[in-house]
């Protein structure tokens, strides 16, 4: 095949793949029950998938590993909860407030982080996450401590002429989450295709070269980090709404680790891989945990197999096959 034609074919296959993903997501409430799924499980996949994609925005496309991204996820969750509990009875306001709280905190603390690299960066991110974990754990009067933040619930989405009951209708809430997911993911894709996104990839590929092309590395890593914090906090806000509850574990580094696992499992050099990783993770967790409490060991075996045999992750493997 001529290179031009080959390129066009590739673009078509890619476009068809993306269309299939959206079609599957939009129709999920209708086909999931056929496979024994339920709508809230689909929403969980969306929310954790968005979180994994946010981690991967940084890990897969800037080459920076954060092991403490649950911090911003947790702030998003508590931020949304606080708003519903004490301030405004509005789901969109709660989501926006949670996103801003986690995102802005991430951007501020991120400024302290960007001079660290590699393991040191990862360690400091863990430390930040754990600080928030212990605050949420200890400050019972505000956060509910170990019992978690209770006493708030999703509010109906009011459109004037009609309103959607997000609380009692799981399908409505699924579509609300899908809408937020779509906005975030579209933004991510646009950023990655922009000149700024290309500087992120340049930093991942070769930091020294990027620096000597005149890219201020620290500033660009900070910007990418901050953006990923906003996406992460959005996922966290949706997570609190999904459960009508938030507890300190949303800050814990083990959850940060789960997000990294989803990204690596699905394919961290691919855009959609982390969503695939989240699907595998959440579905396995759901099915296996009903059989045994040791569900994590099955995930563990799967990760070992994937890392050993398909280091580019599930989607990375598929893309490689197609390119060959």
């Amino acid at each position, binding site marked *: 095949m001529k290179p031009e034609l080959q*390129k066009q074919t590739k673009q078509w296959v890619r476009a068809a793949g993306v269309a299939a993903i959206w079609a599957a997501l939009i129709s999920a409430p209708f086909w999931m029950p056929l496979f024994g799924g339920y709508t809230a499980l689909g929403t969980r996949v969306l929310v954790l998938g968005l979180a994994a994609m946010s981690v991967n925005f940084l890990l897969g496309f800037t080459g920076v590993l954060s092991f403490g991204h649950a911090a911003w996820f947790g702030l998003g969750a508590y931020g949304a909860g606080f708003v519903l509990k004490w301030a405004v009875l509005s789901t969109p306001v709660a989501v926006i407030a949670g996103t801003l709280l986690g995102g802005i905190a991430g951007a501020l603390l991120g400024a302290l982080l960007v001079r660290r690299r590699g393991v040191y960066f990862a360690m400091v991110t863990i430390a930040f996450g754990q600080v928030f974990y212990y605050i949420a754990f200890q400050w019972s009067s505000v956060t509910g401590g170990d019992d978690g933040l209770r006493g708030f619930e999703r509010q109906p989405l009011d459109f004037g002429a009609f309103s959607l009951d997000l609380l009692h209708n799981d399908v409505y809430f699924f579509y609300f989450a899908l809408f937020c997911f779509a906005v975030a993911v579209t933004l991510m894709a646009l950023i990655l295709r922009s000149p700024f996104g290309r500087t992120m*990839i340049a930093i991942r590929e*070769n930091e020294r070269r990027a620096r*000597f092309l005149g890219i*201020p590395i620290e500033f660009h890593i900070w910007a990418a980090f901050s953006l990923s914090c906003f996406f992460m906090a959005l996922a966290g806000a949706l997570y609190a709404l999904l459960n009508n509850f938030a507890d300190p574990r949303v800050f814990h580094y083990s959850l940060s680790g789960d997000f990294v696992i989803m990204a690596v499992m699905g394919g961290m050099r691919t855009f959609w891989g982390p969503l695939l990783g989240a699907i595998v993770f959440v579905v396995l967790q759901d099915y296996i945990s009903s059989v045994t409490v040791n569900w994590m060991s099955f995930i563990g075996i799967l990760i070992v197999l994937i890392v050993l045999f398909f280091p580019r992750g599930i989607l990375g493997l598929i893309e490689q096959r197609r390119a060959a």
Partner: protein
Amino acid sequence: MSTLEVKNVTKRFGSLVAVRDVSMTVAKGELRAVIGPNGAGKTTFFNLVSGFFAPTAGSILFEGRDVAAFTPQERVGLGMARTFQITEIFPELTVFENVRIATEVAAGYRLRPWLSRADTAEVRHRVEETLALAALSSKANRLVGELAHGDQRAAEIAMALALKPRLLLLDEPTAGMGDQETYEITQLVRRLHKDGNLTIVLIEHDMRVVFHLADRITVLDQGSFLAEGTPQEIATNEAVQTAYLGKAA
């Protein structure tokens, strides 16, 4: 005004003096080679000029402005670009994408969240121009990491060129190359210098390349300035022969 004026720079690493009181003036449009035996301090000297680290003492004037304390990014902004002894590229991107990143940064688009159609077309045009200059047009869509060593070097030079520099710093452009590749890179550098009238400073081990390309040569030895002159002068300089060519013979 000379393009580059290095005045009495010294670089210490602890008790080691890697570069001691070296000066060098490069005129606009000149091609200057910096040579010296292993350990002469060439690479350190180069890193001082390009901003990899700051000198312990001395000043570095680019077009009359002291850039000794400037970051690499600021120097690139003023019009200095460099390549590395060990090729530094974006291996998992195509040749086109490599050069596009450099082109967009040079155009001031690095923080743009989007580009208009006109800007995109303009960037594409400039990338294609640069690729043609480096004789890489036919390999535009190949991954740089998969190219032959010589083409990777050419791609790195193309990235530096995309920055539209007024001073190009080449760190051993023919390192590790076979004869054919060396010839091609030499021709490329010659074209940039003669046709593009670009001011170039290069470090090089291959004396054929140095004597073929350079207008003037600066010789360093053990971190200090040893001699400077035209290729003929350097070839017949006794101190240089003793320190360097003599040793090789």
